[in-house]
């Protein structure tokens, strides 16, 4: 079972690296925002997997909070874009 956890963590880390490439290369700010949203979603998955691996269910509370923060960040960035704030992308 430990190998399964390790494989899952490696695959999700690879997903984080690929999303980070889009954060760096992204031609416009909305592209970077959706890449950051993918970041938070992947990290929620990683925290859930860590909760299973370590056997401590309190990590699921942290996963809830991270998902909430990601959603609020996406809403905030979208408001910022629609209001037409200063951009440098």
């Amino acid at each position, binding site marked *: 079972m430990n190998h399964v956890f390790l494989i*899952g963590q490696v695959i999700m880390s690879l997903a984080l690296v690929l999303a980070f*490439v*889009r954060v760096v290369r992204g031609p*416009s*700010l909305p592209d970077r925002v959706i890449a950051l949203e993918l970041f938070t979603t992947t990290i929620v998955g990683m925290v859930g997997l860590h909760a299973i691996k370590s056997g401590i269910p309190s990590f*699921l509370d942290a996963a*809830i909070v991270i998902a909430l923060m990601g959603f609020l960040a996406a809403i905030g960035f979208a408001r910022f874009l*629609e209001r*037409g704030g200063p951009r440098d992308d």
Partner: protein
Amino acid sequence: MIDLIKGTLIIAGSLFMLLASIGILRLPDLLTRMHATTKAAALGVMLIMVAAAMHFAETSIVARALAIVVFILMTAPVAAHVIGRAGYFVGSKLWSGTVKDELRPNYDPLTHELKSGMETQENAKRQPRDTDPD
């Protein structure tokens, strides 16, 4: 047996997340990238949370895992819609192979006003209501 199901769910969830990030890296414009990430990553998180619920198998923890699933299921489409709308408004380029952009003729990029195509002199008139003061 339950280990087998758990392992399958974990590997499938992480593969869906990898698929989402490959999509965000390879697809050509904002809306197609969003279509890849929102659905695949949400499905990946849901599979992993189901695995967590099966692993702990206590009522409170299963409820928490299902709360995460419901939360992701409710917020992912809302966030995607809001960001897609903002991206369209700030004028992100669509892919050159885009077949149809139904918003383009009905949208004024300067005033951000949307038209429904139903605007006539007749519709613009104000209808009297019962609550109007005489």
